[in-house]
């Protein structure tokens, strides 16, 4: 399918999302997650900071139980777009959005904000633990939603396990989160986001402050998480997008230039602009 969006043409895959050549699971001979439906549909979304149009008429379908990476040069609008997906931009003075965002067909702009952010979680570039214990960091969101007692402890353990951090912290749950390494703090941030069982997890450059080993851990974690969660990751690291995602979108000057299966994007992109960027000839 070819969709014209503003000055740029957006290419969307016409192939079904469960094309047997599309997913690492099938490449590795493993069963795929059962779903390939569009979890989050964005139609002609524009984001403004005052009169500056930072995101221009972007339309994209985020597939359920898949990882979608957003790449592009600095200032291309990819982070602004990501933040719009759980309405983070609303706190910025003068910021506004136009267009439509649907989560399972429901209008996200009309949803009660706490409910939206429970369903669509966010992990930021810099790990931001609260000045509390490891346990209380993860329990924070659960308590807001009424969690307590053994159910709370069980949910904290489960979240830490899903974030591949449990084995490293299970004996020091009541120590300060600041005692953890950078990579552990970032996994703690992911555990905290996972605690309220989000359906979509947004990650804004989650590895940019981490060393290669910690980065590999997070990437493996993301690979496992997509069995239960839909992931959208913004990264300036093209290799990370190639390694960790099933779909990739390339942003340039606020527009989505191309969106397709990651394999297609990195082996045979449709647009010259994408090819120039991923081959290092531009950006």
């Amino acid at each position, binding site marked *: 399918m070819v969709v014209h969006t503003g000055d740029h043409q957006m290419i969307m895959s016409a192939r079904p999302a469960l094309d047997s*050549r599309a997913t*690492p699971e099938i*490449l*590795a*001979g*493993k069963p795929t997650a059962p779903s390939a439906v569009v979890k989050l549909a964005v139609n002609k979304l524009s984001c403004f900071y005052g009169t500056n149009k930072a995101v221009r008429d972007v339309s994209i379908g985020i597939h359920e139980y898949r990882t979608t990476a957003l790449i592009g040069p600095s200032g291309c609008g990819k982070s602004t777009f990501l933040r719009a997906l759980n309405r983070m931009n609303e706190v910025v003075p003068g910021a506004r959005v136009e267009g439509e965002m649907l989560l399972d067909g429901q209008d996200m702009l009309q949803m009660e904000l706490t409910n939206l952010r429970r369903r669509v979680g966010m992990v930021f570039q810099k790990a931001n633990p609260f000045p509390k214990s490891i346990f209380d960091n993860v329990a924070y969101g659960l308590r807001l939603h009424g969690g307590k007692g053994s159910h709370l402890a069980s949910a904290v353990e489960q979240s830490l396990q899903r974030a591949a951090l449990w084995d490293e912290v299970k004996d020091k749950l009541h120590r300060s989160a600041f005692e953890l390494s950078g990579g552990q703090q970032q996994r703690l941030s992911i555990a905290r986001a996972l605690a309220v069982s989000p359906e979509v997890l947004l990650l804004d450059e989650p590895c940019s402050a981490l060393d290669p080993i910690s980065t*590999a*851990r997070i*990437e*493996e974690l993301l*690979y496992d998480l997509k069995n239960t969660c839909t992931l959208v990751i913004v990264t300036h690291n093209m*290799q990370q997008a*190639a*390694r960790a995602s099933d779909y990739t979108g390339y942003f340039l000057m606020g527009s989505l230039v191309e969106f397709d299966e*990651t*394999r297609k994007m*990195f*082996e045979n992109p449709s647009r010259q602009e994408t090819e120039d960027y991923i081959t290092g000839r531009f950006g």
Partner: protein
Amino acid sequence: MRRHFEIELEALQGRVLEMGGLVQRAIHLSVESLQGRNIGAAAEATDEVIERIEPSVNELHREIDQRAIDLLALQQVMAVDLRFVTAATRIGSDLERMSDRSVNIARRSISILTNPNPKLVIQIPRMAETVEAMVRDSLAAFGSRDEDLARSILDRDQEVDEYRDVVFQELVDEVTVETRFIQQALDFILISRNLERIADHATNIAESVVFMVAGEDIRHRYNTAASS
């Protein structure tokens, strides 16, 4: 921590070995049909090689290349993993050519057996036995990353070349005194030529294994030594 691309590397190895198994069967069927001297059985074996094995081999050849491209483009494989992926694509190409050679042998075998009094050149089964062992060992060396086994295959290529020369001379002598044997002689020469080329591909696989395991490129050394 086990990274998920390691599972993909294992899957690639599995496909190469699966392709190798098919090619081994194709070689064996094509040679066996000649030795059996039974035109019916030979026709069946030839059908299996051409209709069933060859298309599967071609499909695996494409799949192996695609998996390798995916690993190079998406996983940025390095060092031993990079050499493994490179070796896998080279081996895939060698196996595909070996399968084609088996088809040639099967067709020549049918041609020989349609003759009312087919002769059997005694060196061909011995040559085939040596070639089949080389193919088997080259794939085993790949599967177990056994550098020593791979290097042991290189010396055996000379043995196969000698068989080819003996077969050629024997047939030349034969047709000199009995010209009606010319068609069969040509078929046998082509069979020995195809067996010799299969041995060359097995040698290539062994060289790829040495490159994969030790990072040493030993291609063309033997040729250089032989020509000097």
